């Protein structure tokens, strides 16, 4: 249990944090414009992972290479997000946050169980090679896939950063998130902004699901719902509705889960995320990073 173990826990924490970060950013983006906590968000992870497995495995007649399958799955789930929003959430968007939140629970049941009814509960995994960890600088060890997950996560973060700061959509999203009625008055088509945000949010969720599947195969249809609480923890830790906070929160949660597992008890991995979450809620409900966007 020396320095080696410590460094390995740090690395594992950062890897898992990269997955959580993608998911947490997606969740927090949609909260920014819709103002309710979406319990159905975990299903986007699940659908992303399953769709990638199916696309890569030739279920729909073609077998795409894994990266292509992941991209297609991400886009499709993004569209699914828009459809879900239009079907379930838009019709009651003027009713306040509570009905939306309760509806999202129903939606999560519907999506999860439709998938499960269709494909069954068998565990699935992505067609990826198994690699041994390589030694880096004699300090820590990683597989190339784990490196790839970190890279994909960083690229996603950068893309979202540029999108928010440099594009019209980003500006509109920030405006809508800040004050929807003001944004409306300023001539922003907020409905369209909300839909685009749903697309981004669901797509980020799907991507998080794919990254999760790369690291933690095999998985079952409950995977997204079970991981949801971890993503909640990161999102709230960062201050809900704040993408940069979510990224930071994600790495804290990833580290906490891996340190807890290494040094306390490996049977409570999820509980470390939960407890941090509750601690944050109590001490600093606004999260570690104040300020909108």
């Amino acid at each position, binding site marked *: 249990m020396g320095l080696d173990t410590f460094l390995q826990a740090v690395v594992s924490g950062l890897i898992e944090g990269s997955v959580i970060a993608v998911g947490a950013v997606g969740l927090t983006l949609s909260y920014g414009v819709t103002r309710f906590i979406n319990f159905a968000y975990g299903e986007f992870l699940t659908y992303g992972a399953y769709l990638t497995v199916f696309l890569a495995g030739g279920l729909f007649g073609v077998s795409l290479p894994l990266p292509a399958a992941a991209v297609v799955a991400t886009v499709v789930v993004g569209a699914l997000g828009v459809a879900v929003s239009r079907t379930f959430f838009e019709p009651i968007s003027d009713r306040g946050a509570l*009905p939306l939140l309760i509806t999202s*629970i129903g939606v999560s049941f519907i999506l999860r*169980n439709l998938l499960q009814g269709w*494909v069954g509960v068998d565990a699935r995994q992505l067609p990826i090679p198994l690699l041994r960890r390589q030694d880096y600088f004699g300090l820590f060890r990683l597989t190339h896939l784990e490196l790839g997950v970190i890279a994909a996560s960083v690229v996603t973060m950068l893309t979202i950063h540029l999108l928010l700061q440099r594009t019209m959509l980003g500006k509109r999203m920030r405006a809508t998130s800040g004050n929807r009625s003001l944004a409306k008055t300023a001539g922003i088509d907020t409905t369209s902004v909300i839909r685009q945000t749903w697309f981004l949010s669901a797509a980020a969720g799907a991507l998080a699901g794919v990254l999760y599947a790369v690291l933690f195969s095999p998985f079952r249809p409950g995977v997204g719902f079970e991981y949801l609480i971890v993503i909640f923890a990161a999102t709230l830790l960062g201050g809900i509705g704040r993408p940069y906070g979510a990224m930071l929160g994600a790495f804290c949660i990833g580290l906490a889960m891996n340190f807890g597992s290494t040094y306390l008890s490996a049977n409570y991995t999820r509980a470390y995320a939960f407890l941090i979450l509750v601690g944050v*809620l109590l001490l600093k409900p606004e999260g570690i990073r104040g300020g909108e966007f």
Partner: protein
Amino acid sequence: MALLTGWAAFVVGVATIACIYGLLTLGLNVHYGYTGLLNFGHVAFFAAGAYAAAILTMPPPSTVTNASYTVGFNLPMPWGFPVSLAAATLVGGALAALIGATSIRLGTHYLAIATFALAGVFSDVLVNEAWLTNGSFGMNSVPKPGQAALGPDRWQLAYLAFSLLSLLAVYLLVERVLDAPFGRLLKGVRESEDAAKMLGKNTTLVKLKSFVIGGMIAGFAGGVYAHYIGSVVTAQFVPQVTFTVWAAMLLGGAASNTGAVVGAVLVMTFEESTRFITTVYDWMQATLPDALSGLLPAIFGPLPNNPSFIPSMRFVIVGLLFVLVVRYRAEGLLGDPAEIEALGEEEGSE
């Protein structure tokens, strides 16, 4: 000899479980319907009660195969039964007090997530701390009080009667308490926390009391459950239970106690009736005239042929229930639209 045969025996079993869910729903209704507290961890209180009852009444570990638990107080039945139920109620309430003390002052959404998360932690504890809970083996020798004396059939009936009485008693108690000034105070907090504060009320304390009352009811339900099934296993206490209770409450009508009970009965009847889908299918296949017998396979053939299909559809329907009730009939079957109005006015962001 056999008092209960055929359908009667089956219905008695389902009715008993429905009573237990009725209790759970009454408890949740105190939280959400009356106080506006979004409790997504209700199953934890239920589990706490069930485990309290099990630990008090299980025989000592030395007498049980594969025991990894270290304490079983082996309270002798019959008088051990009320003690066990009282303890279940108290432990449910104590857990609610503990969770409430940390989270109750959080805004609605945060409370929803915090309760959901804490229930998750609690279930981890139940699974991992085998010295207390016997881990995932579960406590499988919880005594069924009076069964030896009454025989299985009479006991089933007696226990149903007891469950019905318990449900009625809790129902009356809740109605009474919530009709009293305390109930109006709860609703006052629900409708406008600020106004209640201005009237000099300690709203956090009021919410905490409400949380504990609901937790006690759920704990009591856990005790009743443990002595009915005779087996308390971690796998039983999953988030699905929480959301089934939510579905029952929303369907019956939030803030209506009658609605809570009716909702629980309807949801449980629905869940149990899906057990007979295969029987009905066989029966139809056997009774339809030959000319039509190809019809059923033609209709159902394209459906996915995996064994999870029907159970999954059951939860799709539960999910739809959430969506449809919220969208088209927010007051549920028996609720009062004005009450729902009061619930919905919560501010979205804190």
